[in-house]
């Protein structure tokens, strides 16, 4: 299972990176979203999969899944949500002000004075 998940994570990273390298601002943001999905999945996979009950003590199980990575992922999800939404509004504002979402055109001029 972990091998399969590693492959899926690898594919998510590949596609996310490819999107980040394109010209469109929107695709870059979609790429970062894919990258964060990949990262969250990676965190979960690294803790080991399917090794016990959900981390709720009421279940009275003998083994529980490791709760720490889940807490870490929860924090990461919230933070990446905050950053993504900020980015989105930034893209929106940039498009409104500058009239393009092409990164090649959003390039600083050489005459920095």
């Amino acid at each position, binding site marked *: 299972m*972990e*091998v*399969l*998940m*590693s*492959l*899926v*994570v*690898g*594919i*998510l*990273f*590949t*596609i*996310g*990176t*490819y999107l980040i*390298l*394109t*010209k469109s601002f*929107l*695709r870059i943001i*979609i790429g970062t979203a*894919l990258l964060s*999905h990949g990262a*969250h*999945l*990676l965190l979960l*996979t*690294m*803790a*080991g*999969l*399917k090794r016990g009950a*959900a*981390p*709720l003590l009421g279940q009275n199980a003998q083994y*529980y*899944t490791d*709760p*720490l990575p*889940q*807490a870490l*992922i*929860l924090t990461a*999800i919230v*933070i990446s949500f*905050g*950053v*993504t*939404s*900020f980015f*989105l509004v930034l893209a929106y*504002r940039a498009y*409104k002000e500058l009239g393009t*979402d092409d*990164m*090649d055109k959003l*390039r600083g*001029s050489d005459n920095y004075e």
Partner: protein
Amino acid sequence: MTLLHWAILAPFLLAIFVPFLYKYLKAIHTGWFVLLLPVTLFIYFLQFLPNTYNGNPIIETVNWIPSLDINFTVYVDGLSLLFALLITGIGALVVLYSIYYLSKKREALGNFYVYLLMFMGAMLGVVLSDNLMVLYVFWEFTSLSSFLLIAYWYERDKSRYGALKSMLITVLGGFAMLAGFILLYLMTNTFSVREIVEIAPTIINHPFFLPAMLLVLLGAFTKSAQFPFYIWLPDAMEAPTPVSAYLHSATMVKAGIYIVARLTAVFALAPEWIWLVAGFGIFTLFWGSFNAVKQTDLKSILAFSTVSQLGLIMSLLGIGAVSFHYTHLEENIYTVATLAAIFHLINHATFKGALFMMVGIVDHETGTRDIRKLGGLMGLMPITFTIALIGSLSMAGIPPFNGFLSKEMFFTGMLRAVELDLFNFDTWGILFPILAWLASIFTFIYSLKLVFHTFTGKYQPEKLDKKPHEAPIGMLISPIILVSLVIIIGFFPNILSYSLIEPAMAAILPLGLDERFYVNIYHWHGFTPELYMTIGVVAIGLAMYYYLTKWQSIYKLHPEKLTLNKFYDGGLITLENTSDKFTHSYMTGFIRDYLVYTFAFFVIALLSAMYMLDALVIDFSGLAPIGIYEGILSLAMVIAAFVVLFAKSRLTAIIALGVVGYTLALFFVIFRAPDLALTQLVIETVSVALFLLCFYHLPKLKQELNRVRFRAVNLVISVGVGIVVTLIALSANSTRLFESIAEYFVEASYEEAGGKNMVNVILVDFRGFDTMLEILVLGIAALGIFAMIKLRTKKEEGHEN
């Protein structure tokens, strides 16, 4: 802190008060207040003469950074005292001269005297410091204050060019010297010059010995304007004339001479030292005097003349260093070279200072320094003419002035070089007297030119801006004192012999404890080769001066393109262009390029680390089995991700991204993470809504128009990133070094924190700090979004872009 330390720091302290004196006591020329200090210091340093005469150097230490062996140690021996007296004595005369030279009304006198005092203090620090690091600090202070003084008239382009040039060259040398000092420290474990001298013979075979020598020499040569680093000196002539007289003839340019003299005892046992110092010195002497003849600006002549005279002193120090290879004073014939070096050092300070002041007077009274416009000033400015005549004849080496005496001794020293049977001197040594003799002829020519082109010949009032007349008496005092010294030393050469010269020699060549050098300077040696050489110089010099116009065209043979100034300017431009091109070659301004660098580095570094450290371990044991649901979900996620990639409309891309997110939530369900699943579902919904909201206002996703080559690079890099992540995940999963700390949370969640949902207990109790800051992140994002939407500054005219 002893009085000696305060003497070095006094100029800096006075410099603090100069602006106040300048501002609040406008009626009196600020120079008068400044004048008191060098006079006082000069008298103060005179009282050390008995100490150095008796061979009792004075050492005073104040701790500065004892843990690094850096302490402010002042060491007064013959050499230091000689320089200190030169610095304060000529300093006083220059300040006096500047009072009359610089106008109280037009010039920013506050700045001038602050810089000048900084320089004076720094120079005293250089010559009196025993600790190499402290010496270096003062050394850089001289470069800095010299830079400020050269650019004193900063509104002129040439001043700024000259200042920058001298700064670049001297600081380059200063850095090299610092490296040399550090190497010396590594060899000897001390920064104290005295202690280094004591253990110098033991380090001669150390591998750092030669690099240290070369680096120190680079510092000394750049400061003392030796070939090929002399090029800053002629351009430094844009400084006010008192500065040229003080810094660029009498003191700062002799800092390099001082370093060479001071460290002779460390390095002289190596033949490389003798060859380098003597060789570069003699060539600088010849080259400087050769080029001085063609100059048409009075200060340029003096600048090249200074270069050449510094080369003379340097070559004498080089030959003098041979003394270290003799143990008995009686058979040592090379000490005469050191004697000549010190004697000429004093003489040069006197006549060159006077000549610079003379040129300043001519410039001040006529408005030009161009000898093609000058002429026939003898009758109008008789006193200035007398000063110029005495100074020039002394520089040319004509009896009865002091320059004659040092030139005779210089010839003696150079002739001795031929007799040397060490280090191949028997074959190449013959070059020394020949070059010395040729250089003396050119020296003779430009000395005559300096006086006679200015003061005799046709008077051309129509070419002059002002009507010339004799300078005010205040301006004449300083050069008169200096030429008086030229005459006094010329007629009574031995008045300084044992008070100044012998102690300084003893400081350079510490031979024996009870021995004293025999210093006796005569005018008449009998019919020696030196005398014939001098007669030859005068005869050929006169003839060549007479036919100057006939042979002056040889200077045109030297192509303009090959001059060192062209090389320096071209080098600077090439440096700037190359670094500009290099920067622009990779700083393209496209974010994609920077991301490519980042990802490429990530892939290459991690892959090579994995390969080199043999870190790729894949262990398939202990894996969880793959169920049917997980298989389907994985497939769904991969397909959705590819749909995102190939989507042509933004709606498809967003929905596919949503599918990835929801599949992730389902994975969380399967992998027993209920809280994550909840959060992921909610957040994915909100995100997709946000995406839709924003994309509604944006243009349709266009077809990718990038060329295939770019796509290929992107593909390679992104596949590389994916592979690296997968490989790291696999090998990390295969190598678990220790058990998880999960047991603790399972046990303590309820007992210590009173909660059964372990994830939530971790979030708010065990690791509540993370949660607090994560809330802060959300708050900042919300505020930022609000600010972006609501706060807008109006577009101004000519806004950037």
